[in-house]
């Protein structure tokens, strides 16, 4: 496979993630931290994030099942943690959904919470898939691909 082509592919994948608003500055920061001492830093962080967050997702799902009454405080706390974790990898859209969810929590809107969480999960899964594909390709290409998106 043409290395340059692969590199370009990786770069454009990444660019599209930013263009679609799925990732933000934080991802760039993480990439900035990647170096020879930490060649797979970003991937490690993302992996760690998905491990933690899947736990949170199931906790939230569990909590959402309790309808009468719905424990908004607990949901808010869980979502706060989830949001923190998502923002640490730069998951922009997911973070926005988190905020929406928390609004519903504060308003005590159970239906809104459920709906928003469904949406959030969709975004979460979509980003995860894309990132996995991205990292797979990036690994093939080699560690020197940390082209920063020019602003």
């Amino acid at each position, binding site marked *: 496979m043409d290395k340059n082509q692969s590199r370009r592919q990786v770069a454009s994948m990444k660019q599209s993630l930013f263009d679609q608003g799925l990732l933000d500055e934080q991802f760039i920061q993480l990439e900035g*931290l990647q170096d020879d001492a930490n060649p797979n830093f970003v991937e490690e962080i993302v992996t*760690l994030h998905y491990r933690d967050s899947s736990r949170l997702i199931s906790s939230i799902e569990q909590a959402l099942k309790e309808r009468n009454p719905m424990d908004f405080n607990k949901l808010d706390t869980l979502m*706060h*943690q989830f*949001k*923190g974790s998502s923002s*640490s990898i730069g998951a922009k859209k997911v973070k926005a959904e988190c905020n929406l969810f928390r609004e519903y929590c504060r308003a005590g809107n159970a239906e809104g919470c459920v709906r928003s969480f469904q949406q959030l999960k969709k975004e979460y899964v979509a980003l995860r898939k894309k990132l996995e594909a991205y990292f797979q390709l990036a690994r093939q290409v080699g560690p020197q691909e940390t082209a920063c998106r020019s602003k």
Partner: protein
Amino acid sequence: MTVVKDQRMDDLRDQFPVGMRVLAVDDDATYLMVLETLLRRCQYHVTGTKNAITALKLLRENKNKFDLVISDVHMPDMDGFKLLELVGLEMDLPVIMLSANDDPKMVMKGITHGACDYLLKPVRIEELQNIWQHVVRRKYDLKERNKTSSQDKPNGDCCNGRGSSATGNSDQNGKHSRKRKDQEEDDDEEHENDLDNEDQSTQKKPRVVWSVDLHRKFVSAVNQLGIDKAVPKKILDLMNDEKLTRENVASHLQKYRLYLKRISRVANQQANMVAALGTADSSYLRMGSLSGVGHMPTLTGPQQFHNNAFRSFVPGGMIGRLNTNVGLNMHGLSSETLQLGHAPNLNNSMNDPIKFQSAIACGNQNGILAMPLSIGFDQLQHNKGVGFSPIQDMSSLTEAKQTFAMSNNGLLLKPDRENRQESGVYNNLTSVASQHSQFSLPLLDHGRCSDIWSTPVHSSGTNSYPPSEALPGANLSGASSITSLSNQSHDSLTDIHPQGLTFTNNSGLSHFPFQGWEDHNHDRSYHSNVIGNSVDSLIDPEGHTSMKSTFNRNLDFNFCDPLKHDGIVGLSEENSLKQQQGYIMNQHKSQSSHTVNNLGSLEEFVSSVMQQQQLDKVKLLDGTYLCDNNYPAGTSM
């Protein structure tokens, strides 16, 4: 976590800020890793931990191991703010808070708890590149403090916001007399300090651990001397601890005063909030100007009384949260309030407030009163001058205390906002307190807190509180109980701050004088150490029920006498008024110190406010208590 290679570390430290030793605390593993990497990128030496308890352990085992702490706010095992305070208190290290939550209230909370900075997650590397300034600043401030500590000037200035500048001055004057001799010593010591500081900014002198006992001694010494007159040399002499140097005491005193000030500020904020409740804010404001009686103004707000059955009077000003029995009785108060309203003297004389209180107290007899007191108190609070500057008006407070002592019986005014709700409960408390004729001045605030903490005064079941001591102490106990009670409002007493009365009655309550170190949201934490009794009902305003943590806090928190949790714990657990009352009663009984009672009353008061419905029960109880108090109802008025 990371192996410290001493040699290399020393080298690194020489190149400060390179090699600055940071302890990072965050329960989110992902973010912790990001943070550690970011910090290493800034060339700091990083140790990370997910667990706040572990972090504390690391910090304690070697005081000189770290230069800076960065901690997340939301952690499961211990609240970030608590950790913040503990670190600030025990180790005097700069702490930076981190959170994904950019709510200004949280930021404010961080600042009031003593954070050097508050960063939002995710943090950019640029923000971290400058955090070393906090380390330098702290060392510099310490140096400055030590230099002037002999004159207690900075303390005086900052602590005595409104009013006691005079006292502060006199303090300094007093010091001047001994200045010469002390100055020499100080100069020498400072010189050494300077040398040390300059040589290696990251190197610290052997740190003194302010254990609970030590702090207790400190607070009692301060109370004995009077907060205005407490100067490091004298405190040191009183404490009679050979391991302490005057500088240690000086810096600790500084912190203590800042803490008290902070509490009062918080209380003021709450007062402001309470003001929203309406009544006579202006009257409070007027009151505010009272010297010393700072809180008294609130008392004089007759309007207030009318409106809120009973605004918390602040006898002697400082006592922001007097749990006057009067207050408790809404009904009683209204009539009383009229009386009170006419007590202009309250405003300006210590005695007045006291009388007022007594009057109010008498009023209580009618029943439990809603916390108008607290409301009023809040008002007071929000007048800086008015209220809680415990420090300022220590002297006045003392007077007030004395007066109260006479009349009080638990005049615990609680400026809680929740007055209304809690009044019921509160009444009980106050009645309890009053019985002991201890004048537990509302835990007033911060300034008082110190007094309270140390005060053995409580134990004096007599009304005569050692002026600065008695009141605070009393209040504390009362407060603590109240806080415990008040917790209910929040989360049921689970939030107990071991440290003292933390009245975490919902936000309204915050009037407990000791918002102290634990300026939780509710700012209701009172450090009820005061009484040294079991009024350890530390109610964690933040609603964290981790008693454990609060207790730890208590221990760590030197300012508050470690409350014996036994009493408080029980209290805190029970939200129900009844229990509280029982608690208070128990407290009362168990502790000779009246303060306990007082505290109980405070707490009860708080809780009573919270639980209006339970007031009935309380009322009965209160009524009983109130009757016991022999307040010269008409005294002040």
